[in-house]
């Protein structure tokens, strides 16, 4: 059984803080994954028009890359990559006519019929490590940290690719395994504003404000995410969000993999807190989960 790793473009630059600790943690937990030697952008959003097959080429081409490597599973960490790859994979598996058209279009590639399984990193942790084993591996439990899980849209919708279809509780299980306290949070499965932040920033900021308000209401110490676009809207742009809306309080945001790295006692450098807002580092040092920087 070989697990291929599909990183996605953003994890190689702006969201290195999503990737580095994630890979170090898998290594630490004894799960072997290998980054695909060739891959392209997945397309970030799944195309919804029935006749629009050209936008399925990008995700399917990556699945072909994984199959070429002999992988039966490909794991992704970015929520948008996961959603796009998983939905394209279902399309190829379920629609013989479209599969045939795609294969005939990509004359330069071997045929693909959905042989590879697309899984999200969280599913891999839950199903191949398990919360009990993860809990046992935690050497630096985040005791007392109230964490609001932000699933956003693409991890849980639509139902056929949801990482936890019946009762989305995978992030809660993850948070508890790290020794932290999962906080009930009304905006956990809402939209962060998504790509509308680019074309319609006012609407994007308004949407992000609702998520921050819900996090404030839940008295969470931190918000965890698994999507670089969520992190941009709720983290990078949080200053603008709070400035534009009365009564909002700042709340530190983390990628879930950063807290995983801290709890496993990995080198804090690997958690790339330098790429998160300063509030993230401050929270972790004040609570003594990590030592203050000795710069």
């Amino acid at each position, binding site marked *: 059984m070989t697990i291929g790793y599909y990183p996605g473009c953003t994890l*190689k630059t702006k969201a290195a803080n999503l990737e580095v600790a994630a890979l170090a943690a898998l290594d630490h937990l004894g799960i072997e994954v290998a980054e695909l030697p060739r891959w392209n*952008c997945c397309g970030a959003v799944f195309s919804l028009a029935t006749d629009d097959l050209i936008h399925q080429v*990008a995700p399917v081409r990556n699945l072909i890359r994984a199959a070429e490597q002999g992988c039966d599973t490909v794991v992704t960490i970015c929520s948008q990559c996961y959603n796009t790859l998983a939905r394209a994979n279902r399309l190829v598996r379920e629609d013989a006519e479209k599969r045939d058209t795609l294969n005939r279009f990509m004359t330069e590639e071997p045929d693909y019929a959905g042989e590879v399984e697309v899984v999200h990193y969280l599913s891999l942790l839950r199903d191949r490590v398990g919360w009990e084993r993860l809990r046992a591996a935690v050497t630096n439990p985040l005791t007392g940290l109230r964490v609001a899980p932000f699933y956003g849209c693409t991890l849980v919708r639509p139902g056929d690719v949801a990482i936890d279809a019946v009762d989305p509780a995978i992030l809660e299980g993850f948070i508890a395994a790290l020794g932290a306290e999962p906080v009930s949070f009304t905006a956990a499965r809402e939209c962060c504003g998504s790509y509308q932040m680019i074309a319609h920033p006012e609407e994007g900021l308004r949407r992000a404000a609702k998520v921050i308000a819900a996090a404030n209401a839940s008295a969470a110490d931190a918000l965890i995410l698994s999507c670089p676009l969520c992190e941009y809207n709720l983290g990078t742009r949080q200053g603008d969000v709070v400035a534009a809306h009365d009564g909002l309080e700042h709340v530190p945001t983390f990628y879930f993999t950063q807290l995983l790295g801290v709890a496993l006692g990995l080198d804090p450098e690997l958690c790339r807190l330098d790429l998160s807002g300063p509030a993230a580092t401050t929270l972790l040092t004040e609570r003594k989960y990590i030592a203050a920087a000795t710069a």
Partner: protein
Amino acid sequence: MDTAALTEKVAAKAVPIYIMGKRYEVPEALTIMKAMEYAGYQYIRGCGCRGGVCGACATVYRKAGDYKIYTGLACQTVVEPDMYLAQIPFYPANRATYDFESAEPTPETVFKLYPELFRCVACNACTKVCPMDVEVLDYVSALKRGDLKAAAEISFDCIQCGLCASRCMGEMAQYHIAQLARRLAGGKLAAKAEHLGKMCADIEGGAFADLLGGLKSMSVDELKKVYTEREMEPHMGADEWTPASSHGLA
């Protein structure tokens, strides 16, 4: 060889080709460029080095009964019977202007100058059309993930012919973006070649002045003698071959 004999020989091996839809009979061993000249076309533009490196004579063609698009450089590609061809010497392309000295060798520099990069759909038409067999999609993918060094390496054989841009669904000019990546990677990310700096300093310091002066003072006959008697690397030499004389090289 007299002209009559040449004409006879050519006529015996003529093949039909179609240039912009019109049929011509041309000698079979000619390149597309020479065949077009044979057919009466005169190149004023769309022709540069005639050596396969300038990218001016990109040509697209189809073969009878075959749906596929083929490409080649007119100066390099030999005609085939029944090929339908047109040269695309120029394709309009957006080229950003920037101050290279102040440009940071970061992904953001590329993203700011060429946001259309993110319109790639991975259709791979660019790679399929490239007459230099550059894996264009792979360097576009590398650019999207911000890997300037990889993009520079993958695009190294690009001759800027522009055929990729002519086929791009995302309407970008891939080759200009790759050129920016090569400039940033080569000029600002790659390790400086220390031996080159040292050699330049040696030259400026007069390390070869005596050797050059000696050559300059020779008569033509002496030069010929030195030239014919020079030490040459054997054609089938071993990998470890080194010249007997260092000629002043350290």
